[in-house]
C-alpha cells in the first residue's frame, strides 16, 4: 500500500486532465476513484502533504501540526464562538478522525428531501452507495471486551432507561490482540484511485478557477514540504469537482466569482466536554478508542466518549485549579465525554489580502439552552454510571460532585469562553432543487457553471446529527455515479 501511495505525479507548470478533483478527503477520494475507474484521466490535487497513517502518532501534537488545517486552530467567530478542526493532508479529515460510522438517519434525509427538494434521495436509494463505500472502507464493531471508559457511558444510560448504542468504526480490528488498521482514505480509496490510473499531486493548493473556451483552468500553487521551490501551476480540464471540505470549498468558489447560495449556510456539531472521575480504573493504556454513544435525545443532542489520554485530559481539565496533580494521581479513573448538538448558521467569507476565510457563526438562544440541558443530562448519565466527580471543560464552571450540583448549573450556556468545539462541518453549499437556498442541483452540479461539481460535506443540506463521514462518502458515491451515467452533463 505504501508504494502505491507514493505514486505521486511529477508536477509541471501546465498540466491537463479530463477531470480535476480538488481535495482528497472522503468526498474527493470517492469521487476521484469512481471517475478514474470509469476510464477518465483524473488528476486529484491536495493542499496538504502525502503522509502515511503511521507517519505521526495519532492525537499527538505532531499530528496536529502536520495533518490538521491551521495547526488545529480554526475559529468560527461570533458572540459564542466555535473552535473547530479539519484535516489537511492526503485523505483529509479521515486521516485524523476516529472513524465512528453511521449511515444517515432516515428522518434527516426526509427533511433534506422536503426542505431542499433533493430529487431521488431516501435511505433506500442511498443504501447501495453506503454498501459500495463500506466494501472499500470497511466498517467493523469492536471485537472482545470494550474499553471501560466507553461502556461506562452505556451503563449510565441503561440505568436511566435511555437509548444508547455501540457505534461501529471505519476500522479493521484484525481480531483480538492483533494490530488493527484504520480505514482512512489513504488506506482505502486513494490506493484504489491510483490503481485505476488516477494521478495524485499533494502539497498543491487550488487558488482560483476560471473558465475559457469551454474548459476549466485551475490556478494552483505547488509548495513541496521537502524544500524544493514553490511553483505556480495551471491545470486545464473539462470537468472540475471541488471537494475541499465545507469551509474551503465555498472559499475557493467565492474567490472564483461563484457566490449564489455558496458559503451562506455552514453548520457545525458544536460540543461541550466534561471529564468524569470514577471510583475505580477505567482508562487503561493501550485501550482501543471508545465507541459508545447515547442517542436518547437525538435530534436535539447526542453524547459520546472522547479519547482520554493524558494530554487530552490536560486540555479538558485546564480550567480547573490543580489539574496537573489531579490528572497525575487519578488519570486512570478519568474519561472525557461530550454532548453535541447542531449549531446555528455560519457564513464563509474571504477577506481582502488574506488567504484564510473568515467564518462567522450566529448561535440561537435555543441552541445555547439545548447545550446547557445536554450538559446536565451528560453529567446525570455519568453519575448514574458511578462517577464521583464531573469536571466541565468550561471556564468558571465548578466541579460537580452530585446531582444537586448538576441542578444548580445555568440553564443557558454563555459560550463566550471558546469552550465550544467541533470536528464536524457541513452544508455550506447545499444540494437540491430549491433554488432559493441551494448552491447545486440535486446531484452536486453547481448552478450556472457548466462542468463544475461539488463533491464533499458542503453538499449536505444540514447537520447529519450522527457522525457525518458515512453520509459524505455515500452522497459523493451517489453523485459521481449519477455524473458518470449522465456522461458528466
Amino acid at each position: 500500500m505504501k508504494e502505491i501511495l507514493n505514486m505521486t505525479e511529477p508536477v509541471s507548470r501546465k498540466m491537463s486532465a479530463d477531470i480535476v478533483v480538488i481535495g482528497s478527503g472522503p468526498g474527493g477520494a470517492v469521487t476521484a476513484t469512481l471517475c478514474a475507474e470509469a476510464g477518465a484521466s483524473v488528476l486529484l490535487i491536495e493542499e496538504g502533504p502525502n503522509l502515511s497513517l503511521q507517519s505521526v502518532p495519532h492525537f499527538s501534537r505532531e499530528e496536529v501540526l502536520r495533518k490538521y488545517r491551521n495547526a488545529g486552530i480554526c475559529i468560527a467567530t461570533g458572540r459564542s464562538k466555535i473552535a473547530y478542526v479539519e484535516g489537511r493532508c492526503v485523505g483529509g479529515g479521515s486521516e485524523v478522525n476516529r472513524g465512528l460510522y453511521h449511515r444517515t438517519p432516515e428522518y434527516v434525509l426526509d427533511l433534506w428531501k422536503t426542505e431542499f427538494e433533493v430529487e431521488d434521495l431516501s435511505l433506500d436509494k442511498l443504501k447501495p452507495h453506503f454498501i459500495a463505500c463500506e466494501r472499500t472502507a470497511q466498517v467493523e464493531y469492536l471485537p472482545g471486551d470494550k474499553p471501560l471508559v466507553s461502556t461506562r457511558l452505556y451503563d449510565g444510560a441503561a440505568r436511566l432507561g435511555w437509548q444508547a448504542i455501540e457505534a461501529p468504526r471505519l476500522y479493521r480490528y484484525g481480531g483480538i490482540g492483533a494490530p488493527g488498521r484504520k480505514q482512512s482514505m489513504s488506506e482505502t480509496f486513494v490506493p484504489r484511485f491510483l490503481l485505476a490510473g488516477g494521478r495524485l499531486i499533494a502539497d498543491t493548493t487550488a487558488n482560483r478557477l476560471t473558465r475559457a473556451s469551454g474548459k476549466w483552468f485551475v490556478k494552483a500553487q505547488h509548495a513541496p514540504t521537502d524544500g524544493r521551490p514553490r511553483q505556480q501551476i495551471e491545470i486545464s480540464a473539462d470537468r472540475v469537482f471541488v471537494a475541499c471540505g465545507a469551509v474551503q470549498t465555498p472559499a475557493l468558489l467565492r474567490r472564483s466569482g461563484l457566490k449564489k447560495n455558496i458559503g451562506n449556510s455552514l453548520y457545525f456539531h458544536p460540543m461541550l466536554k466534561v471529564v468524569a472521575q470514577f471510583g475505580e480504573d477505567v482508562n487503561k493504556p493501550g485501550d482501543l478508542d471508545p465507541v459508545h454513544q447515547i442517542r436518547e435525545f437525538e435530534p436535539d443532542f447526542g453524547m459520546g466518549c472522547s479519547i482520554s489520554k493524558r494530554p487530552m485530559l490536560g486540555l479538558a481539565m485546564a480550567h480547573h485549579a490543580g489539574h496537573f496533580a489531579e490528572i497525575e494521581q487519578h488519570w486512570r479513573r478519568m474519561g472525557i465525554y461530550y454532548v453535541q448538538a447542531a449549531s446555528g448558521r455560519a457564513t464563509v467569507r474571504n477577506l481582502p489580502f488574506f488567504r484564510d476565510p473568515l467564518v462567522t457563526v450566529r448561535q440561537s438562544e435555543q441552541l445555547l439552552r439545548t447545550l446547557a440541558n445536554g450538559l446536565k443530562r451528560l453529567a446525570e448519565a455519568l453519575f448514574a454510571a458511578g462517577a464521583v466527580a464531573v469536571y466541565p471543560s468550561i471556564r468558571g464552571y465548578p466541579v460537580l460532585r452530585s446531582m444537586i450540583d448538576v441542578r444548580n448549573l445555568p440553564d443557558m450556556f454563555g459560550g463566550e469562553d471558546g469552550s465550544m468545539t467541533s470536528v464536524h462541518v457541513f452544508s455550506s453549499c447545499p444540494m437540491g432543487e430549491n433554488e432559493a437556498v441551494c448552491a447545486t442541483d440535486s446531484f452536486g452540479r453547481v448552478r450556472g457553471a457548466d462542468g463544475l461539481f461539488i463533491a464533499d460535506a458542503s453538499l449536505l443540506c444540514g447537520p447529519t446529527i450522527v457522525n457525518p463521514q458515512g453520509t459524505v462518502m455515500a452522497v459523493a458515491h451517489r453523485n459521481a455515479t449519477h455524473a458518470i451515467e449522465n456522461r458528466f452533463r
Partner: protein
Amino acid sequence: MKQHSQPVFWNDIDLVIFDLDGTLYNQRRLRTCMALNLLHVSVKTRSLKTLNVLRIYRQCRETLAEGALVDFMNRQFEDTAMRCGCSVVEVREVVDEWIEQRPLIYLRACRYSGIEALFDALHRSGRTIAVFSDYSAAAKLEALSLKADLVVSATDGDVQRLKPDPAGLYKILNATGFEASRSLMIGDRFDRDWAAANRAGMPAIIKSRRRDPRCGTFRSYQDTLFQPVVQSADTGGTFAFPSFEKCVRAIVNILLRQELPSARQSENVESIVTYVLATHAGMPDYLRLAFRILTVVFDAWPYPATGKPFHRLSSDRREDQVNRWRSSRLQIRSGLIAFYRTFTIFGVYSEIYEQDVECEGNPEHD
C-alpha cells in the same frame, strides 16, 4: 584595572549564571576563618577527628565529580565514613555543622567587593540571575545578602550531578527558557565551571589572575569587563526592543511556573516554546497577524512603568503582568493569555506523557 580578556557582549546576554563558592565570596578567606575556628575546637576537644573527616570528605567529592555518578549524595558520606572509620551519621553531622552551618556566619565578611553592585545592575537591566552550585546554595546566598531569580544545586532531586556535568545548567535553561548562547556562566574553576558551560554550549568567564585560551578571565568585579552593564544600569539600563519570540518564550515560562508543580518545571521548555511558535505560525493568517501584534504590544506594555519590555522583567513582575491580562475583562487581553495557556498546557502534557499518544490498541505503552 587590568582586563584579561575580550569584552562580553552584554546586549546578547539575557541570563547570567553564577557559581557560588569561590565566585561570589573569597573562599580562601573563609577557609582561613574556618581553619582558625576548627583549630580552636580541636585544641579545646583535643581531637583531630573533625579535621580529618572534613579533609577526606572534600577528597571524596572531588573523586566523585570526576566519575559523574548519579548517586553521589549518599556515596560521598559512605566513602568518607569508610575511610575515616566512623559512621555515616557522624560524617553527616560534621559536614552539616562545618560545611553548611558555621560558614554562614563568616560568609558576609568574605563576600567579594563589587558583587552586590553587579547583581543590582543585572537585576535592573532586566536580566535573569541564576546560581548553580555543587553544594546547597540558598542559605549561603541569603547569608551573602544576594538575591537570584533561580537557585539550583547539584543536590536537587532533579539534578543529582556535580559539575562539570551540565545537568544543573540544563535545568536552569529549561526553567528560564533562555537559550544557552544568550546566557553567561561566571565561575572560578576551569575544570568545573567552564567545562560545564562548554558542554552546554554556553559562554563562560572565569575569575582568575591568569589569561587562558579557553575563555575570558577577570580579576575582580570592578574589572572593566563588567563596566558596560553596571554603567548602563546606572543610566537606566540597555534599551531592549520588544520581541515576539522572546515574549512568547517568557510567557510560556510563566505559564509553566503557574501550571506545574515545581519538580516538573524543568520539562523541556524549548520544545514547548517551539510547539507554541509552530502553532502560531500555522493559525489562520488574519488571526496570526493580530496575535503577533497583540503579543508585541503585551511585550511593550511595561515600558511606561519600568522602561523594559515584558521579557526583560523579573519573574515575579512577569507573573504579575500575565495574571493581570489573564483576568482582564477586555476579551482581547484575556484571550491572548488563554491562547498561550491552551497550547502551553497541551504542549507540556504531550511532552511529559509522550508515550500516551503512541499507537491505538498498543498496551505496551503505559
